[in-house]
């Protein structure tokens, strides 16, 4: 691929993933040599029209306006990347999905007449997605790997399996064996087992791995002393929309 034209779009999100891109610093300069940033509100003043070779979408889709906008973005991008957990699975915004819409809106807003929100979904609920860049926030090494893979025209070398593999390769002391619940065994790797490497249980931000046995892990959480409500929260924190994690939430 010749210098690909890149666009970055923000939907319902904290902008943390875009900030990660800006944080690339040294690597960013090298990457910038290889790409042409055509649309990136946070980092550039010049906004160019589409179509784009690669579109990075951050954020969940949570309003009728966003539903229309994501369809437009899809039309304008050859490769569409769901960037970050919100765009991949609905992410943190999706924790509202199990409470009634009006009740949730009333907790946050006063002028309810002006609020028109929808169930929070990842963007693939509305449009086909080519690549998922997982994590809250995204992993910069994976972002660079993705750009390189796109330039080479090959599939990005992402880990589809459980976090446990990278955790063990780093020889971390297993947090589960220290009595701390960890979503690592059902969560897709690629982050380098970031939280367990700091001796904290994985929160599952990267969503389900490619062979999720969430029901089995939920049972183990219960045996470790977690209440049913705690287990449900574990599985609905980032990717409750996915059938895999939903199975964990409903296992007990």
């Amino acid at each position, binding site marked *: 691929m010749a210098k690909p034209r890149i666009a970055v779009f923000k939907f319902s999100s904290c902008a943390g993933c875009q900030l990660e891109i800006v944080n690339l610093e040294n690597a960013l300069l090298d990457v910038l*040599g290889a790409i042409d940033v055509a649309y990136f509100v946070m980092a550039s003043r010049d906004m160019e029209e589409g179509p784009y070779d690669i579109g990075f979408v951050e954020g969940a889709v949570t309003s009728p306006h966003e539903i229309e906008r994501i369809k437009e973005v899809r039309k304008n991008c050859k490769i569409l990347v769901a960037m970050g957990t919100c765009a991949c699975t609905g992410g943190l915004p999706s924790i509202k999905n199990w409470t009634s819409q009006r009740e949730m809106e009333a907790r946050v807003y006063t002028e309810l007449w002006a609020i028109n929100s929808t169930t929070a979904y990842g963007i693939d609920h509305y449009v086909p997605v080519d690549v998922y860049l997982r994590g809250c926030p995204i992993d910069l090494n994976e972002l660079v790997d993705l750009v390189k893979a796109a330039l*080479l025209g090959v599939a990005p070398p992402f880990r589809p399996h*459980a976090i446990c*593999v990278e955790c063990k*390769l780093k020889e971390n002391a297993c947090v589960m064996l*220290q009595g701390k619940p960890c979503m690592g065994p*059902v969560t897709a790797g690629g982050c380098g087992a970031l939280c367990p490497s700091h001796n904290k249980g994985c929160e599952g931000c990267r969503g389900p791995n*490619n062979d999720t*046995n969430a029901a089995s892990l939920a049972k183990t959480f219960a045996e470790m002393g977690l209440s049913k409500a705690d287990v449900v929260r574990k599985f609905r924190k980032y990717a409750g929309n996915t059938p895999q994690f939903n199975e964990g939430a409903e296992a007990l």
Partner: protein
Amino acid sequence: MLPVEVAVLKKADVASFVGMLTKDYKVFGPTKKENQFAFGPIDSAADLSLDYTTTILPPKKYFHQPVETMMSFKSGDVTSEGAKLDGKQLLFGVHPCDVNAILLLDKVYRDKYEDPYYADKRDNTVIVAMNCTEVGQNCFCSSFNTGPGLDEGYDLLLTDLGDKYLVQAGSAAGKDLVAKAGLGSAAAEDLVAKDKVLRAAQNKIGKKVDTENLAEILNANFNHPKWQEVKDSCLACGTCTTVCPTCYCFSVADKVDLTLVSGERPRVWDSCLLKEFAEVALGHNFRKERDARFKQRFYHKLSYFESQFGAPGCVGCGRCVTFCVKNIDIVAIANEIASGAEETKPSVVLSKKAPGECKGNPYKPLKAVIKGIKQQTYDTTTYTMSFVDDKVQQEYKYDPGTFNMITLFGIGEAPISISSCADEKGTFDHTIRAVGNVTKALTQYKVGDVVGVRGPYGIGWPVEEMKGKNVLLIAGGIGLAPLRPVINHIKNRRSEYGKFEILYGAKTPNDMLFTDEFDTLRIIPDTNLLLTTDNPGGVKWEHNVGVVTTLFEKMKSVPENTIMVTCGPDIMMKFVVKGLLAKGWAPEQIYVSLERRMNCGIKKCGKCQIGPLFCCQDGPVFNYGEIQGLPEEIF
């Protein structure tokens, strides 16, 4: 002072002894990590936790590193072949199970294709082992005679005798260390004391697996109801294999820098528990289900490894039990299956070994130039290649049905069968369907471009056994590529073979390979060519319509004095074999070429295993009679 075989080291002197070791070696030993242990760098004896039960990762990580650069490359050239070990390293306090596991890895990595990365570290490492006087709750080494006492594989062996260690030297390096440290000689009662503490340790081991006929019993119970229970519980997280001291599988994936032309080819430990492990291009997965993958690990340890390397693949270290968050216990499973089991089934043993030898680094590809490119179908192309080094090309010999590993540095490496006949000197052909990273990238290559090639690997078609016999050749789609050498081999020696019949099927006429060669096939004397397509589409088609087995009604071949060779999609081969067996063919007359994921071609990466067989070196061509008893599904 004269070197002594048996000495004593007072515990008060351990600090100075370790201090001495750190001067000459990079020392690694057991250290505390939260409520667990890990082998780590040792600067002084204070860093050691010699009361450890087991470490998270076994010390194999110092020989076969979790992530290791095999070579660096730039613009298609290998610029370095991995880093050599800097100085010598010493592993202190290695338990007998782990030493025995290293001896098993020697069998895997130091065969005719010696792994240079492993060998370098192995040759430059001193092992100070330590017998176990305390045992962990998951230890079951005594079931495999791999502990609590150690018999071989050490330079020095320590046994805790209370206020001192008994020190036994097992090598010249070990004797030198004893001499250098000036350790005092042991007394006869110290050896008696050693026996006593080891007997006591042995008695403390609570876990036991009855290993008598275990492999044969397990082979007969591949579909035991226990496996459903395991499937429901197992998280397929890969922990059990990653912490296993005898697991050796790895995957290889190139990493380029932002120039996209230079980078590294690392290997990373892989795990048969992971879903993608046995997945091939186009998404077919030979072990899609979790229980199939769990069984692969379990059977590899307790059945297959012995067929492959002559010893059980488990040393009873207990790590896979200790570190499993679901407490899945292979000892309990083995005992449950074995209890009350009466049926046994012998392991599959093959009659042939692959030819081939290794000069230098077996992973390093040689440069080959593309001499010709011929489009076969919309997605399949034949590349005619020749090694850049004339001498290599002249000496390059291969059997029909064998394969090469093709490298495009920066993209990766893929196993591809050779589609030419070795009678054609000067060049060799690969007929490639663009379905994966490497094969798709190759479509951008032009005549004169250079790729990396290493091989040939494996056992090919039985062209010698076929002599004097009739031959039935059945191919499906791209499966004709590895069979084309057989056709040309017979064509060039027509009088040496009996009747020759070719059945070739493809999805549509547009998916057929080598169509321009069909006419030359028809004029080979005493040869019958039958074609079929599942769906002729809009193309003019005068031949059969239907799957390849529908040609069985039209073919002339009969079982008498005939050998059948087949290659095609798994589902096709499955029905071809089934159909011929039903028509009275014997399994021994049937040869199949199997496809599996491969990252090395030389029995190292572990990806291509089918039960106890390595598709890369025991195949890819197998006699169906020899493999029909495999516990795992073949097709």
